């Protein structure tokens, strides 16, 4: 009996692995085949360019990070854009001419010797951005995570609004230009393999290379793969199971000895880490960090990816992220121009990109109403949606006269 069970399981696991490997190989080939795909009649126009794929993957990585907070631990974070901003600005601080009071270089590529500012290698900046964002996540999390779900949502939203206003206004912090205000920090250094890489035929700097898009694309895929790997492994770890326990029943989880605050803070911090890395990468790809990029809409956009794909389901979030990312970067514009060319009278002015957030809103509402577990549901989450979870009954909260549903002493 056991043997059959094990074999059956290993067969499914193997099949899963095969699918994953095939998908990865296809993804790595994408820059080569994108051109020929685009020449297919009818559907060719809808094939995203490699550059667009980079943006889609960067946002999908953030969505996978957000999924750890929202999907695994059940903490609704409406200010995830703050982590993206911290990551992007870290890249700006450590790999641009922002601090021209000094001139430090360490492994930076594609810039002349002696250029003012701090220029670390982007490969170093990515983990640094992740760590700084992780610290930001802890700093935001510690005071707020003891709040109940909906209050947490509004406070994270508050942080998501404060951070962009801060970077917009922090061009004169007691006379010190920290963020360069509305102009943002630009140019941010490129990724690249430097002189060592150039010696073996790899591009010295992606931006100056003739194959810029494909190198950024491959880096994005690698970052996404690392994120997905960590995400899947964390889900099965002790910490990940503690997150799910908290999501399903906070009181029972606490009774089983799970330290609530510490576990939630880790969810927040680790989710933030990947947001920061993806943010720094995207800033390097775009070549700048601008305050106008960090609005509440982005937080909702990322949340929408998680919901569409399926909260807690990594593969679902990747699917949701790629679909919405595609619509955002190219899809809506392409569909819009098709509609305008269709010759139907009144529609020649119709521009769906203008209403993209309305469209995301409709997706959110329809998904919540009709398929709350997402396109590729996570098994446990689906059960929760059907059977309901034990949640703090609201009348308890009011009688306690406080919004925390447990004793702050127990951490």
């Amino acid at each position: 009996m056991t043997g059959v069970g094990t074999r059956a399981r290993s067969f499914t696991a193997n099949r899963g692995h095969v699918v994953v490997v095939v998908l990865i190989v296809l993804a790595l080939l994408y820059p080569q085949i994108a051109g020929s795909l685009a020449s297919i009649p009818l559907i060719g126009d809808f094939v995203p360019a490699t550059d667009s794929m980079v943006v889609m993957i960067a946002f999908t990585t953030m969505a996978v990070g957000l999924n750890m907070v929202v999907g695994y631990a059940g903490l609704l974070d409406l200010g995830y854009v703050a982590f993206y901003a911290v990551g992007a600005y870290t890249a700006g601080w450590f790999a641009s001419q922002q601090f021209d009071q000094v001139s430090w270089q360490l492994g930076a590529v594609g810039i002349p010797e002696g250029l003012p500012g701090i220029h670390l290698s982007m490969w170093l900046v990515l983990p640094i951005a992740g760590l700084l964002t992780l610290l930001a996540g802890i700093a935001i999390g510690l005071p707020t995570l003891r709040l109940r779900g909906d209050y947490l949502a509004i406070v994270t939203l508050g942080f998501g609004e404060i951070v962009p206003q801060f970077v917009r206004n922090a061009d004169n912090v007691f006379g010190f230009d920290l963020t360069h205000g509305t102009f943002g920090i630009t140019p941010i250094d490129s990724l690249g393999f430097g002189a060592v890489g150039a010696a073996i035929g790899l591009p010295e700097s992606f931006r100056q290379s003739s194959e810029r898009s494909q190198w950024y694309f491959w880096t994005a895929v690698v970052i996404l793969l690392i994120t997905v790997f960590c995400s899947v492994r964390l889900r099965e770890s002790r910490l990940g199971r503690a997150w799910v326990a908290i999501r399903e029943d906070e009181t029972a989880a606490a009774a089983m000895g799970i330290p609530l605050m510490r576990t939630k803070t880790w969810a927040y911090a680790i989710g933030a880490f990947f947001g920061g890395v993806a943010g720094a990468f995207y800033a390097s790809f775009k070549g700048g960090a601008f305050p106008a990029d960090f609005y509440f809409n982005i937080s909702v956009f990322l949340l929408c990816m998680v919901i569409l794909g399926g909260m807690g389901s990594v593969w679902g979030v990747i699917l949701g992220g790629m679909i919405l990312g595609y619509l955002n970067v190219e899809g809506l514009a392409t569909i819009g121009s098709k509609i305008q060319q269709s010759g139907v009278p009144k529609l020649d002015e119709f521009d769906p990109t203008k209403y993209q957030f309305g469209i995301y809103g409709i997706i959110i509402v329809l998904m919540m109403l009709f398929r709350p577990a997402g396109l590729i549901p996570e098994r446990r989450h689906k059960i929760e949606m059907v059977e309901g979870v034990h949640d703090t009954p609201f009348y308890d909260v009011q009688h306690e006269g406080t919004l925390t549903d447990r004793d702050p002493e127990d951490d």
Partner: protein
Amino acid sequence: MGSTLTKLRGASITDMIGLLLVALVVVWLLVNFFKSPTEFVNIGLIGLTTGLIYGVVALGYTLVYGILQLINFAHGDVFALSGLVASTVIISVLGLDVNSSTIAVIGGLAFTLVVIMVGFSLFNASIERVAYRPLRHAPRLAPLITAVGMSFIVQNIALATYGVNYRTVPNFIPRTNAIHIGDIVYSWSKASVLIIVIPLLIGLSWFVRSTKQGKAMRAVSQDTEASAMMGIDVNRTISVTFLLAGSLAGAAGIVYLLQFNMRYDTGFELGLIAFTAAVLGGIGNLTGAVLGALLIGFIQAFNEGLALFAPGSDWTRSMVFGILILVLVFRPEGILGEQTPEGA
């Protein structure tokens, strides 16, 4: 004396920091007051007017939160849409402008108020019926996420109908002064906010306190299951709450339109400010919402208007959210939080 000392010693560090922050704000206000009293009062009057508008929006949040424990993100956008529709009614349907007679202005405004309040109470109740009611037994996050989605849908309805330009109405309410004492002035256009809002607040308070439906609302917000056992139709009561909240959003839209210009996304930021006000006062508590909104109105006006040590309007949003976060950290039940079970 002795008991005060023990109390102080018993207070935690967070309480001390909280008190210190409040003390700093008070000192800042006092310094500014003695510097130039008339300016201080004039700015305070601006704060009173904005605060009242925030209060009407905040009431909508607090009513819904009190009964459903749901942050109705769409409320701010319903408010903005109502203001935009009101501008159409005032300009295109009624044709009010600077030359309109006083009676035409009063009659026209009354007509607009009735039309918009009725229309948007129905609109708000249908949002509840379509988007929130099916999720009554889903996990808590589900209706909250749906509310975020509804917010974007309503915002885009406004965008599709009115485009991206700011809308405003002609100054048919004279800018002459209603009150004029020394250098302290208060114009009729600002006074109109008081004239519209204060009766509304009295009416709402009467409704919640004295009518059978209001009693049902308070019962449901205290204990849904028990009130259902007592024969209260919970769904109907929730619908009534959304009707009320929608009509308040409509009224707020009109008074806001009389003061400022607005466009499709005005409701998002104002909604967040109003929600902060509701939390500041103690969510679920009607008096608290108005009190919190007045406080926020004053803080905003002083921040933007005062000369000494004021961070200025660049930082208003950060300050409002900073207050929200501080309140939730130091005193999550809000200023009047203890009264919550009886409040609404």
